Each structure stands twice: as structure tokens, then as C-alpha cells.
């Protein structure tokens, strides 16, 4: 591949962004959509070419950025297996979602902005993925956060959406601080920020001398990953982020951006490998997140919120895999998850589109009839996420469970519970949405329709991928994915699981678990036709409905104290400082006013003062001295 095409790959979305920003207002809506889509498509095509041609990593040196002290940072990019793989599904799904958006956002007056932001997002995502050092990655990292902010708050007239956007940005920034500190530690310890350089440095001296610092660095990077990938305790922004348009949720908050943390940890696997403590932390955080999010997902009524919690939960599973050192398994799940979760979101988008913005599942139902394609694709994706063979999700999730089983039984149990819950709430979602009779208004019912082909086309593609995505890494024999990613993890030997009785038993058990979950959902929502209400929930259900009160807790222990501190500072400290500084001035002023009384205009007094002073002088100079 020549350099030009790489540059085109990098900058095509940026060009698309610039075109839309500067000329979007004057272009027709379709044109701006086409420009946006084409630019991403261009990147996708080049990535595809790359994918098929590249065997050795290619580096691309654009220019120098800055050098500080011993640290030199350049605009360098690396295209190796990991980044190409990521680019592939980022641009691929990105293209699909762009196509989808042309139709979905057609009624919005600011459509050109939407495409501009989407393109910008893709650009930053490419930067993140392809950057060859931590700081370029950080550009992308912050950049996607920014686009996420812009897109969540796309409908900026609604301040709640803006709040959600802000929250996403701030929480990401908390993680970013960790990321930065990690960068500092690594930069200071190795004098470079290039991945290859860090790797070499670690290989040379890491384990022996400064491994303590490396562990801390790894932990800091993990904090960054937590923010971006919505892990405990920084996950609460993701459900709120559903305020954005649905394609955004699909692209950013399900398929791509939120996997950046996983990408980063995978990228830095050599670092995490020498920090087992951090790995344990990751595993525990991951599984906890999976459980907590899944449990909250059980009782959500907003269709997108359910999907959001499911995303968090799935991300937790990926982190579990990372924590267990099974990076390629995590990557596998990232990819399959991208397929089916994007499909689910787009499907829900289609539903919402059909219902003119209605997101509450309690007001849906029975859409199976009027929205055939949406229903089928949705069903496939649901089966995939629930973990039923032979859909993609089954294979990837099963590998995670398998790894967990080998490493730690407790983790395995918890992860299994989480996946059972997943199966339950996904089918709950499915039943409430597509089965039984419609619970919305008559008005809505009249206008129920299947979405246009621009919407259904991506759905179909993604459904196919959800169904077949597992093929890239089947557990039987040498999986393609493991093989493909070998150079990334080359430094350590990889143990292929031999499929024995235990493994098959586990698979069966997993399927069984999923079926149990589905069964309960069927029982509740299909047979009993229950419609959840949020008014009179009790006990655990109430806790779950309120998401364990985590937002409230954060509010109480972080936000409120900060505001309190602000008020205290403003009303007390500021005033106090002001007073103490200028109080001196007031003292002088008072002295001045009082002093006027001494200057009383009486010559007699002046003469007394005169004589007294003379006496004092003489006493001092002649008598005391």
C-alpha cells in the first residue's frame, strides 16, 4: 500500500467533515448525507484493501508534533493486524450507519451537522486506532469523546440532552486523567510514547526494575479504559448517552467508541501482562460491571436504555476476558458485539422511527406484523446476544466463559449469571416490542409502517453478520482470528483450548442458561402478557429500577460537595481573603478618620505637642541614651 492511500484512509472522513461543516448548509440534505457516507466508505474500501494486502505492519510518518525534554512525539501511524481489524469494523459499521442515517435523520434541519459530526467521529476513531503512540491515540481518544459529546447533545435545545452529553464528556475526562497519568509514567520511565518503544523498554528492564511503576501505569490506563468503555464506577454516562439520535447510539455507544478501552488494553497487552494485579482488578471490575448492568437492564422500560445496559454488561464481559489475559477472545467479542449490538440499536431505531419517537416499550407491542424486516433482523441479533448457537454471540461469549472457567470458577459463575440475565432481558425486550398487541395510541397505529430501504439495508447486512460473525473464530481447531492476531501477541505463547468434554459441557450449559432466561421471559411477557409498570415497584425491583441509586450516590458524594465547596469558597473564603487583605486598608482608613481629631485646630494643643516632643527628644538624646 502506498502512503497516499493511507493518508486518504486517514483523512477522508475529515474531508467529509470539513465539506459538511463549510458547505453543508448550502447543500441538499441528501448530498451532505452522501458526502458523509462516501468519505467513510472510501476509508472502508482502503481498509479492505489493506486487510487483504498487509502482512507486515506499515508505519506512516506524517510529521513531527512536539518534543518536550527527552520526549518526542510525532504524528505517526501504524497499520498492523490489530488496527486494521479495528478499522475494518469501525469503517464498515460506520458506513452502514451513515447509510442508515441518511434516511433516519432526514427530517432534521441540521442533518449536515449530524453527518459532519459522524465523519469527525470516524476520523478520530481512525486516529485512535491507527496511532502509533500513546499521544496520537490520546488525540483520537479525546476526539471521539468530543464527538460523543456533540452527538449526544445533538438536539441541543433540550437541556436534558445537553446534561447527558456533558455528563458523558466529564466522565470520560475522569478516565482521561488516568490515561494521561499513565502516559506520564510510561513516558518518564521509557522516554518514549511509541508502542514499540515502550514494548522494547519493558522487554529490557520492565519486569525487574520498575515493574511497580509499570503496574501503576497499567492501572492508570485501565482507569482511562473504564471511562471510555463505561465500566464501574464510570459507566453511568452510557445509559444517559442514549439521548442522542439512535444511529449515534449504535455507532458510538455500542459498536465502536466504547470498545476503545478494550482496544487500548489490547494494544498495551505487553504492559498488562507484567501487571497481574491490575489484570485481576480488570477481571473483577469487568464481571461486576457485567452483573450490575445486566441486573439493571432487567427492569428498564426504555428500549434504548435496555440496550445501553446490555452494552455495558457486554463490555464488562470483554473486560473480564482482558483481565484473564485472553485478549483475542475479547477482540472476538468486540467484533461480534459490534455486529449484533449495532443491529439491535438500528432495529430499535427503526421501531422508534416508525412510532415517531416513542421509546417506551410499554407503549409498543405487536410490531411483528407491520415491521417484518426489522423484526427478523432484530430477532437474529437478539438470538446472537442471548448466546444461542450458531449465532455469532454464542461463540464469542462462550469463549469468555470458557476462559473464565479455566481461570477462576467464581468469575465463571458470575459471568454465567450475567449472560442468563442478558438472555432474559433481551427477550423481554423482544416480546414487549414485537409481540402481543399494540399498546400505543390509535394515531400511531395508523401510521405504523416498515422503514424505508435505506434503513433496512444496514439492518439486513448487520443481521447477516450477527448470524455468521462467529465464523471468524470457531473454537474448533485453529481459529482464523487467533491466527491473524498472532503477531500482536507474538511475544507470548498462546494456549489453544483443547475441546474436551468439559468444554462441550460448558457450551451446553451456556445454551441451557440462555434458554432458561428466554423461558422466564416467555413465561412472563408472552404467556402472562405482563406489562411492567414503574409506579408501585417494591424491594429489589425498586433498587434495580433506580439503577442502584448510583447516580444519586455520585450526586451526593461528588457533585454536591463540589458545589458546596464552590459556595463555601465564594461566600466565605473569597470574602474572607478579600476582607483580610483589604481590611488592612480599612484599618488605615479608620485611623485616618480618628487622626483628624488630633488635628483639632487648637494652637495651644499644637504647642503642647511641640514642647512635649522637644522634651522627648532631649530626654532620649541626653538622658536615656
Amino acid at each position, binding site marked *: 500500500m502506498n502512503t497516499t492511500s493511507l493518508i486518504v484512509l486517514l483523512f477522508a472522513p475529515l474531508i467529509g467533515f470539513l465539506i459538511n461543516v463549510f458547505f453543508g448548509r448550502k447543500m441538499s440534505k441528501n448530498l451532505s448525507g452522501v458526502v458523509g457516507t462516501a468519505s467513510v466508505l472510501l476509508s472502508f474500501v482502503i481498509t479492505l484493501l489493506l486487510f487483504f494486502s498487509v502482512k507486515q505492519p506499515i508505519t506512516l510518518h506524517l510529521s513531527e508534533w512536539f518534543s518536550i525534554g527527552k520526549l518526542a512525539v510525532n504524528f505517526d501511524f501504524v497499520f498492523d493486524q490489530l488496527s486494521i481489524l479495528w478499522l475494518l469494523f469501525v469503517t464498515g459499521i460506520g458506513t452502514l450507519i451513515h447509510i442508515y442515517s441518511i434516511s433516519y435523520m432526514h427530517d432534521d434541519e441540521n442533518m449536515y451537522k449530524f453527518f459532519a459530526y459522524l465523519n469527525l467521529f470516524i476520523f478520530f476513531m481512525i486516529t485512535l486506532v491507527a496511532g502509533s503512540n500513546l499521544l496520537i491515540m490520546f488525540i483520537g481518544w479525546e476526539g471521539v469523546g468530543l464527538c460523543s459529546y456533540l452527538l449526544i447533545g445533538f438536539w441541543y435545545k433540550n437541556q436534558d440532552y445537553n446534561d447527558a452529553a456533558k455528563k458523558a464528556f466529564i466522565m470520560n475526562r475522569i478516565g482521561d486523567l488516568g490515561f494521561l497519568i499513565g502516559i506520564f509514567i510510561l513516558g518518564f520511565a521509557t522516554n518514549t510514547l511509541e508502542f514499540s518503544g515502550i514494548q522494547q523498554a519493558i522487554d529490557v528492564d520492565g519486569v525487574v526494575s520498575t515493574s511497580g511503576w509499570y503496574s501503576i501505569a497499567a492501572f492508570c490506563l485501565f482507569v482511562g479504559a473504564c471511562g471510555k468503555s463505561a465500566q464501574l464506577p464510570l459507566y453511568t454516562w452510557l445509559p444517559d448517552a442514549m439521548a442522542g439520535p439512535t444511529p449515534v447510539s449504535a455507532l458510538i455507544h455500542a459498536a465502536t467508541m466504547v470498545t476503545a478501552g478494550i482496544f487500548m488494553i489490547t494494544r498495551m497487552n505487553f504492559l498488562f501482562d507484567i501487571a497481574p494485579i491490575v489484570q485481576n482488578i480488570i477481571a473483577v471490575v469487568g464481571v461486576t460491571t457485567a452483573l450490575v448492568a445486566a441486573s439493571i437492564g432487567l427492569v428498564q422500560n426504555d428500549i434504548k436504555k435496555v440496550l445501553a445496559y446490555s452494552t455495558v454488561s457486554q463490555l464488562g464481559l470483554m473486560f473480564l476476558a482482558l483481565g484473564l489475559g485472553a485478549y483475542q477472545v475479547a477482540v472476538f467479542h468486540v467484533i461480534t458485539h459490534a455486529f449484533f449490538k449495532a443491529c439491535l440499536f438500528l432495529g430499535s431505531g427503526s421501531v422508534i422511527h416508525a412510532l415517531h419517537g416513542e421509546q417506551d416499550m410499554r407503549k409498543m407491542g405487536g410490531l411483528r406484523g407491520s415491521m417484518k424486516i426489522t423484526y427478523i433482523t432484530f430477532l437474529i441479533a437478539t438470538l446472537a446476544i442471548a448466546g444461542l448457537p450458531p449465532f455469532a454471540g454464542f461463540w464469542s461469549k462462550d469463549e469468555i466463559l470458557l476462559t473464565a472457567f479455566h481461570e477462576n470458577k467464581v468469575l465463571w459463575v458470575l459471568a454465567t449469571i450475567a449472560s442468563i440475565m442478558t438472555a432474559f432481558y433481551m427477550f423481554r425486550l423482544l416480546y414487549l416490542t414485537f409481540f402481543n398487541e399494540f399498546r400505543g395510541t390509535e394515531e400511531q397505529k395508523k401510521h405504523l409502517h416498515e422503514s424505508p430501504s435505506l434503513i433496512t439495508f444496514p439492518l439486513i447486512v448487520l443481521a447477516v453478520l450477527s448470524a455468521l460473525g462467529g465464523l471468524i473464530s470457531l473454537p474448533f481447531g485453529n481459529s482464523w482470528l487467533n491466527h491473524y492476531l498472532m503477531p500482536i501477541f507474538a511475544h507470548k505463547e498462546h494456549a489453544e483450548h483443547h475441546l474436551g468434554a468439559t468444554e462441550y459441557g460448558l457450551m451446553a450449559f451456556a445454551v441451557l442458561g440462555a434458554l432458561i432466561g428466554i423461558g422466564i421471559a416467555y413465561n412472563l411477557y408472552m404467556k402472562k402478557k405482563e406489562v411492567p409498570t414503574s409506579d408501585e415497584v417494591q424491594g429489589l425491583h425498586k433498587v434495580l429500577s433506580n439503577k442502584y441509586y448510583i447516580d444519586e450516590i455520585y450526586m451526593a458524594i461528588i457533585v454536591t460537595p463540589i458545589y458546596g465547596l464552590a459556595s463555601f469558597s465564594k461566600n466565605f473564603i473569597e470574602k474572607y481573603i478579600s476582607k483580610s487583605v483589604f481590611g488592612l486598608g480599612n484599618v488605615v482608613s479608620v485611623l485616618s478618620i480618628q487622626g483628624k481629631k488630633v488635628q483639632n485646630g487648637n494652637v495651644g494643643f499644637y504647642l503642647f505637642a511641640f514642647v*512635649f516632643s*522637644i522634651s522627648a527628644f532631649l530626654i532620649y538624646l541626653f538622658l536615656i541614651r
Partner: protein
Amino acid sequence: MLEIVFYILSAITLGTAFLTVYSKNPIHSAIYLVVSFFSIAGHYLLFNAQFLAMVHIIVYAGAIMVLLLFTLMLMNLNKEDEVSKPIYIKFAAVFSAGILALVLISALKTAQPEMIEYVSSNEDYQSIKVLGKVLLNEYMVPFEFASVLLLVSMIGAVLISKKEEKI
């Protein structure tokens, strides 16, 4: 003998000076002051400075006192109409003047050189002739400058007293 004269004169000087300050009637004060001036002239005579004594009498008793008395008469102040001052002011006056005297005198006492015996050289230094020479040779410039001083005070006095006339 001279010593006794000195003490008597000193007593008169201090006493009348004090009475000048102390007496309620301004006219009395003026009279006491004249007496005091005369006694000071007596001191000058003791120093054998006759010319100075004469000048002193002429200037002080003759000119300055007449001026003061004239003003007193002009303003009809020959009665005891000064408002009685609060006691603390009087006390403060006495106190601070006392302190000043005490300090000044004790300072001068400490400054007293060892009593070198005074030896008269019998050189003439204070006859009119000598004084005239000193005044008009050595001190010619200050002497002339004193005329500026007197001119200033004359112009000043006129300036203050004269009525403004528009031109």
C-alpha cells in the same frame, strides 16, 4: 559683690518674666516685661556691654514694648477679660514647661565643660568701636541683609493692614 548683683538681677529678671506671663491684666504684663527688659540690660552692663545695653533698652523697651502697649490700648484690652482656662490646660502648661526646663537644664548641666578658669585677656572686644568694625566689615552682608528683613516686615505689615483698592 558682682555675684550678689547678678543674683538680684537674675531674680528680678525671672520674677518679672514670670509675672509677665502670669498676670491677668495685659497692661500689668507689659509693665512687668519692661522691668524684665531693664534687668536684662542690667546684665548686659554687668558684662560691660554698655552699647548693647543701650540698644536693648531702646529697641525693646522703647520700640517693641511701645508697639505692644499701643496695640493693647488700641484694642482696649486693658482689662482682665481673658476667659479662664480649664485647670487641666493650666496643669499641662506647667507640667510641660517644667519638663522642658528640667530637661534643658539637666542637659546643659551634663554638657557643662570642666570649669576652665575664665581668664580675661583684657582685649577690647565690645566697645562701640570694635563692634562697629566687626558689624560693618565682617558682618557687612548680614547687616545689609537685615535691612531686607526689616523691609520685608515693613512691607508685610503694610500689606496686611492696608485696604485693598481696586485698580
